[in-house]
């Protein structure tokens, strides 16, 4: 990996990087609106994206560079267990089909930009909305950091990561440049930049996967050989535990973990602020439903990508850091110029979600902390200003995180983030369908889920780590090993339901619900739903407050 710089690959990589940088800055002029100084414009692209832009944007947002590196890395390390990403990304779409259109409708009707906006409006509770906002920001930060880890992996393999002995500044300079550029065009163009760059990213990714899945198995003697070799490798006892290091098919003991991880992750994905930001930027309710039927194409690609993990084993790739397995496989198997294309795909693949995540976290801060608690009379222009600055701070924070701490810290926090973000589901999705839950019950349920999830994850040891060694632990009462996030979620729901009965019996104040039943089915074009075309009034002060 550090055996010199791969010049051809690096040149191709830099060319692509320059191209998307130009696109990022030009994006300001794309679908330009009259009123550009509103959060609707900067933070949601004017809520104007149609089916295909939304498809690229959501695909670019949900299937991140880290996913592309980590999923095959997990398969490379453990085999079948790492493949849970496929059922996970299959289950997302029938799931969100049921509730995302409702969220879109109510958000358009009331001008909500974040999930916390909705929770506050629905339950009349700033406390609950703050809890959702803080959870969202906490869960997003390490996710951004992991995108950097993805870029780092690629840079390392190209030989520009520097040796251990290199001065830290020289070593991290490429990463600093990449991030500086990202921060600059996100600041100036808002959500339009990642939306435009997503086209390049996804085209590259599809191209690379299509080539990889045909070319590499041919070079390795077909899938039969690939899986035979992988099977042999997994049967070898691992030096750390003495047990076989993986399997081609999950054994009985691993099946609960596999299913709960898939389900829990699917439930959690659309609780993340960046997923919702990309969703709310779409033009109509129908764009979302249509997207739930075409987004699975990305899941198919992810499945094929996961198979690369087996190919890395069959190709005899040996890396200490599993994250490097796939970039290393590309470098070994592909001609240099195409390896450059593949690295560019991963690198740009990191920029798109990192931009959307930082925008989403910034919107949460602006709307649900700054406006709700610090400056209630902020104008749309001030909101946009604050959001832009916070988007920078969030990225700097992630950068410091990655550069100053061990990579495993970012991974641990991302693991915790998944558990945490799932705890906002009862308030958000519950709230979309019913006002029955009591706001205080939801808040306590959230707290219980957060504490249980964090404590349980802290208690998981692995051969290399004493704490946060994994995301699965024994499910109390069932005795099987399952995903901690899902267990915490069930606990959260039980507490919420029980306390709602108590609160109702005590006649605790319920808070004011500013939404009405028809708000949840409203579509663009209905009377009194704000028209969201870029030239229209979407920059007006919020009509509700």
């Amino acid at each position, binding site marked *: 990996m550090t055996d010199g710089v791969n010049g051809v690959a690096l040149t191709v990589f830099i060319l692509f990087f320059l191209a998307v940088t130009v696109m990022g800055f030009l994006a300001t002029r794309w679908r330009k609106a009259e009123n550009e100084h509103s959060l609707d414009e900067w933070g949601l692209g004017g809520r104007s994206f149609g089916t295909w832009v939304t498809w690229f944007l959501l695909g670019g947002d949900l299937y991140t560079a880290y996913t592309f590196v980590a999923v095959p890395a997990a398969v490379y390390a453990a085999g079948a267990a790492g493949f849970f990403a496929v059922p996970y990304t299959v289950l997302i779409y029938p799931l969100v089909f049921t509730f995302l259109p409702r969220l879109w409708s109510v958000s358009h009707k009331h001008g909500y930009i974040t999930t916390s906006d909705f929770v506050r409006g629905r339950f009349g509770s700033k406390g609950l909305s703050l809890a959702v906002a803080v959870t969202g920001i906490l869960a997003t930060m390490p996710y951004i950091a992991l995108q950097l880890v993805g870029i780092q992996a690629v840079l390392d393999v190209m030989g520009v990561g520097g040796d251990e002995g290199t001065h830290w500044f020289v070593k991290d300079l490429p990463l600093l440049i990449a991030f500086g550029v990202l921060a600059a065009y996100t600041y100036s163009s808002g959500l339009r930049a990642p939306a435009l760059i997503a086209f390049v990213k996804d085209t590259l990714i599809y191209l690379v996967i299509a080539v990889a899945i045909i070319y590499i198995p041919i070079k390795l003697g077909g899938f*039969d050989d690939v899986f035979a070799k992988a099977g042999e490798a997994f049967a070898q006892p691992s030096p750390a535990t003495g047990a076989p290091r993986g399997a081609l098919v999950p054994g009985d003991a691993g099946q609960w973990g596999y299913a709960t991880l898939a389900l829990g992750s699917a439930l959690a994905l659309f609780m993340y602020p960046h997923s919702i930001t990309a969703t709310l930027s779409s033009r109509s*309710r129908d764009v979302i439903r249509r997207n739930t*039927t075409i987004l*699975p194409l990305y899941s198919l690609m992810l499945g094929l990508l996961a198979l690369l993990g087996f190919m890395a084993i069959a190709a005899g790739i040996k890396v200490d850091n599993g994250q490097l397995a796939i970039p290393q496989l590309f470098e070994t198997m592909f001609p240099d110029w195409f390896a450059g294309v593949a690295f560019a795909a991963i690198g740009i693949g990191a920029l798109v979600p990192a931009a959307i995540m930082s925008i989403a976290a910034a919107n949460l801060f602006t709307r649900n902390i700054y406006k709700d608690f610090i400056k209630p009379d902020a104008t749309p222009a001030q909101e946009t200003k604050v959001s832009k600055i916070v988007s920078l701070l969030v990225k700097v924070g992630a950068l410091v995180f990655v550069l100053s701490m061990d990579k495993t810290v970012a991974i641990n926090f991302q693991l915790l983030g998944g558990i945490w973000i799932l705890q906002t589901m009862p308030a958000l999705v519950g709230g979309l369908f*019913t006002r029955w839950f009591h706001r205080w019950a939801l808040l306590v349920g959230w707290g219980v889920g957060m504490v249980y999830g964090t404590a349980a994850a802290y208690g998981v040891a692995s051969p290399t780590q004493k704490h946060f060694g994994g995301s699965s632990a024994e499910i109390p009462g069932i005795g099987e090993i399952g995903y901690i996030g899902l267990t915490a979620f069930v606990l959260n729901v039980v507490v919420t339901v029980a306390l709602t009965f108590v609160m109702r019996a005590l006649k605790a104040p319920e808070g004011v619900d500013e939404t009405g*039943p028809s708000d949840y089915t409203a579509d663009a074009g209905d009377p009194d739903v704000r028209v969201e075309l870029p030239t229209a009034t979407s920059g007006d002060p919020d009509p509700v407050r």
Partner: protein
Amino acid sequence: MSDVQEEKPPTPTTRPPTVTPLRVVVALCLLAPFVALLWVNSYARTDPAFIGIPFFYWYQMAWVLISSALTMTAYQLWQRDQRARGAGRDRGAREGGVSR
């Protein structure tokens, strides 16, 4: 997951029943992938392989396509349901809004 029934039209007066055969089919289309994929034991084996890929892997990838087709079916049926309901309601300015 099967909460789709709750998405009622807002006018209660002329409303058809909440649970209709069409809506049950929609719910089943959306539920099927959960049953199939969360029942891991039903597919945790290597045979039959497909072009050398063990059953476990190609089966789950096949479900990407099946699930996508089912969601698409659910989408079409749901639109039909909403159109029918939209036509049954007052033909004021709201018509077409929900069903589009």
